[in-house]
Structure formats: structure tokens, C-alpha cells
């Protein structure tokens, strides 16, 4: 693979230089796309240039089938709007270089993404409040991108203020119906419950990241969020969808009630409203938390389907699909049943 990457970079870099590639390694996590890091070195205008690249390659099977071109384009738009994301370089839709489609982006060094490190490494303790503030600021920046922005036309029709929630219920209902391997009374019950407990209409329709959480940002030990990652589920919708997703228990990490392992819920709401002008309706967030937990469970179900269909032999897929019972507990708590 290292040779193929060197050949690829040679074809893409200005002047087709000789490219030395080293330290190819697969980065753990990212169950929906393979993430590979590589160091490259070449000559440009008589100067030696070194750069780290990240290759995001389609997997043989995934916890969620997503379009890599959507992720690539959304990240480009987000970057133009000042959202911290890596610089996007190239998108390859075919398999001629690395057997499967992939895209290439900038590697940002000196940062951590793992919640275990960001929340539990003592180096990060003094900057936790700052990370929390930035967590809200970056979210507000994303939600400042209006759904009617012509650059987002590739995301499809803009939902109405009233239809955002129902659109997401339909999306996940459909995926569950397609991929379920066994009866899912809690998840199916929750889908029916959500249809009867829709939130108030969205206050505005914006770009929704849809996986905005601790674990998906790159952060320096000084507490700077340098990049928001994993945009593969991005779509147009209700900004409170991201607020609810950021709040769900799986992303609290520390085993307590702190949102994202960073801050009290009331503080998160206060800062978010201050930064966006969007009022945080608690009933709406509760709805989006039910949907968020369900969505995560359905993603795991999809991983199980890929495993059982023989499209992957990944232990991660087998493991995740056997481990969403706690999400069901949380869903039932939120439904108050």
C-alpha cells in the first residue's frame, strides 16, 4: 500500500516529483472508513517539503454506508466558513489506486482526539473549560451555515422547519428495517414514540454535523480545537439535533452527567444559546437524545448486518452489534417507561 500511495502522491503533487513515503500506519477507530496516516517528502522548487497526509479509504463493509464525496464536499464548505477542519486535497471515486475509493486530507499533528486522553490525561485538566468553550463555539460556527447556502445544494432538498424531525425518524426507521437481524422491540417502540412526541418546529434549518461529540475533535494540550472530524453523516436539519447528539450518555465518557465529559448541561445550553441565538427547548433535546441513542444503536445493527452477510470479518462489527443494550436502557429512560 505504501508504494501505491507514493505513486498516487507523485501523480498529484506539482511537477510530479519523486515522493518518499514513510511511516504508513492505520489509525484505530473510524469504524465507517479506514483511516491511514503517512509521512511524505519531496522536492518542490528546489526545496525539500515534508507533509503528513491522512487517507480515508472506504472499508470492505462499514457500520454505516456513507458517501465519501458528501463528506469531502461538506468539509470543504465548512472550511470556507471558518470551521476548523483539515485541508481537503483529493477525492478518488474509483479503485484504481488503492482498490477502493478514498480521499486525502491534511494531517494535523500535535493533537489528540481520544476521549480517554482529552478527558483523563492530566495534561488536559487545566484546559478542560477552554475545550468546553471551544466545543460550543465550533458548533455555533457550523450552525451559522444556512441550509440555503448554494454551496450545500449537493445535500439535497432543504427540509422545512416542521419536517426536520420526521425526516430523521424516517431515515433511521428505513435503515433499521433494512438491516435488522432480529426483532427490536425497544428501537421500534422508540420510533413510534418519537412520531407521537415530535419536537417543536426547528427555529432554523442549518448544516448539521450529525456526529458532533467529544472523540471527534482534534485538540492540543493547550485546549485549542484544531479540527472537527467525521462529517460523513452531515445533512441539513434542526440545529438542536447536534445539541441532542452531543448530550447523549454514550458521549459523556466520564461516567457522570457532564456533557461530552466537559461541562454541566445547563452551562452547555446557556453558552450555545448565547453563541447562536437558538433557544434550547428541553423537550426538543429530549426528543433528539432519544433519536441519537436510537441512531447509534441502528449504526451498530448495520455493523452486525455487514458481519453476518459476510461483507466483513471485523471483530469490531461483531462486537458493536452485540453491545447496544445499554443504549436501549437509556432510550427507555428518556421515554420514561
Amino acid at each position, binding site marked *: 500500500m505504501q508504494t501505491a500511495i507514493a505513486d498516487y502522491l507523485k501523480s498529484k503533487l506539482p511537477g510530479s516529483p519523486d515522493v518518499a513515503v514513510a511511516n504508513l*500506519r*492505520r*489509525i*484505530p*477507530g473510524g469504524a465507517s472508513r479506514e483511516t491511514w496516516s503517512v509521512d511524505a517528502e519531496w522536492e518542490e522548487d528546489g526545496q525539500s517539503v515534508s507533509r503528513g497526509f491522512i487517507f480515508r479509504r472506504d472499508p470492505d463493509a462499514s457500520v454505516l454506508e456513507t458517501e465519501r464525496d458528501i463528506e469531502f464536499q461538506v468539509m470543504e464548505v465548512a472550511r470556507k466558513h471558518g470551521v476548523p477542519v483539515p485541508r481537503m486535497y483529493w477525492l478518488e471515486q474509483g479503485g484504481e489506486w488503492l482498490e477502493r475509493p478514498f480521499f486525502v486530507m491534511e494531517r494535523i499533528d500535535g493533537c489528540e482526539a481520544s476521549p480517554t486522553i482529552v478527558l483523563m490525561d492530566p495534561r488536559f485538566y487545566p484546559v478542560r473549560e477552554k475545550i468546553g468553550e471551544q466545543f460550543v463555539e465550533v458548533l455555533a460556527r457550523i450552525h451559522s451555515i444556512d441550509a440555503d447556502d448554494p454551496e450545500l445544494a449537493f445535500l439535497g432538498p432543504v427540509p422545512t422547519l416542521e419536517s426536520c424531525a420526521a425526516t430523521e425518524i424516517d431515515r433511521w426507521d428505513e435503515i433499521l428495517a433494512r438491516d435488522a437481524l*432480529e*426483532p*427490536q*422491540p*425497544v428501537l*421500534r*417502540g422508540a*420510533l*413510534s*414514540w418519537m412520531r*407521537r412526541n415530535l419536537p417543536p418546529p426547528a427555529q432554523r434549518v442549518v448544516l448539521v454535523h450529525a456526529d458532533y461529540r467529544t472523540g471527534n475533535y482534534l485538540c492540543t494540550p493547550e485546549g485549542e480545537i484544531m479540527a472537527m472530524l467525521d462529517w460523513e453523516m452531515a445533512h441539513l436539519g434542526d440545529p438542536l439535533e447536534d445539541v441532542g447528539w452531543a448530550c447523549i*450518555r*454514550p*458521549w*459523556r*465518557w*466520564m*461516567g*457522570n*452527567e457532564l456533557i461530552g465529559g466537559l461541562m454541566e448541561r445547563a452551562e452547555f445550553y446557556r453558552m450555545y444559546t448565547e453563541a447562536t441565538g437558538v433557544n434550547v427547548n428541553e423537550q426538543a433535546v429530549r426528543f433528539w437524545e432519544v433519536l441519537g441513542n436510537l441512531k447509534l444503536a441502528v449504526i451498530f445493527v448495520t455493523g452486525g448486518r455487514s458481519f453476518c452477510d459476510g461483507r466483513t470479518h471485523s*471483530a*469490531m462489527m*461483531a*462486537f458493536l452489534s*452485540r*453491545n447496544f*443494550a*445499554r443504549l*436501549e*436502557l*437509556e432510550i*427507555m429512560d428518556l*421515554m420514561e*417507561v
Partner: protein
Amino acid sequence: MRPTGIEALRAIQTALTEVIGPELQTAFAQDTQQTLQMLLESVIAEMDSAASDLLEDNGTLSSLLEDFRAAVSANANNRELSGAIEEIDESLARPDPGSFAISELAARNEELRAALEKAVRALEGVGDDPGYESLAPVRMAMYRHLRDVAGRGWSFWDAASFREYMMKHRSERTG
């Protein structure tokens, strides 16, 4: 007694930790090793009690479905509710496997859970609409069972995001 299935799986876990783990060079391989450990842990956690849990669950599910059928007879004009009854009748009419083989108990469990899924959806469809108050206790009993099932065993979440939650959940269960 020779090593049990659980002891054999523990031996694999030990080998992964003590022999194979230290030899792994990349972060991705180490991460995969951790996933394997967790996968084994989740299997071990349900292995010993799998047959008795399924047997007990199948009894509880049958009883919940009977209760649902009795409660719904007063609301026979609701199409979704009466539609669920048809599936429940079919499930209850099938004989129990008469075997303690986990595969057979699990297959029976899946049939009963499919009927329960239908019932839960029908109940959520009417929600707390007037006229359906008599169904509320049945709905809550179904969710109580689903909570018992969902709170069992071991999950990787228990040591992290769900730590305090599961401590509370378990203390409530043990009274």
C-alpha cells in the same frame, strides 16, 4: 473437572494480554486486541446463564403477550392493536422447543420478541389516547421486561459513559 468453556475463553484472554499483546507493534493491532478482549468478555458474561435466561424470558414473554391479548380484547376496533393480536396468537400457538439447546431456546425467544415488537409498536401507536388507559399497565410491564434484559451482562459502556448509571440501575434492581 476439565476446564469449562468460560475457563477456556479466559485462557484465550490471558494469552492475548500476556503473550500476544506485548508483541503487537502498531496502535491499530493493539486496538484490535482490545476489541477481541471485549468481545470475549461479552460472550463470557452471558454464557453461563444463557439457557436459564432464555427459558425465563420465554415464559415472561408468553405471559406478557397473553396479558396484552386480554387487555386488547376491549379495544378490538383498533386495527393496529387487533393486527398485533393475530401475530401474537400465531406465536403463542407454536409449541415450546422442549429442549434446552440454546439455539432452539433463542429461536423461540426471537418468535416471541417479534410478537412483542408488534405489540409495543401498537401500544406506542395509541399512546395515552383516551379510551386506551387500560393498556398502560401492560405497556409498562413490557418495558419492565425489556429493561431487565437490557441491563444484563457486561458492556464496555459500564466502565465509562454508563458507570454511575449502571451502579444506580443495579442498586435499584437489587433493592
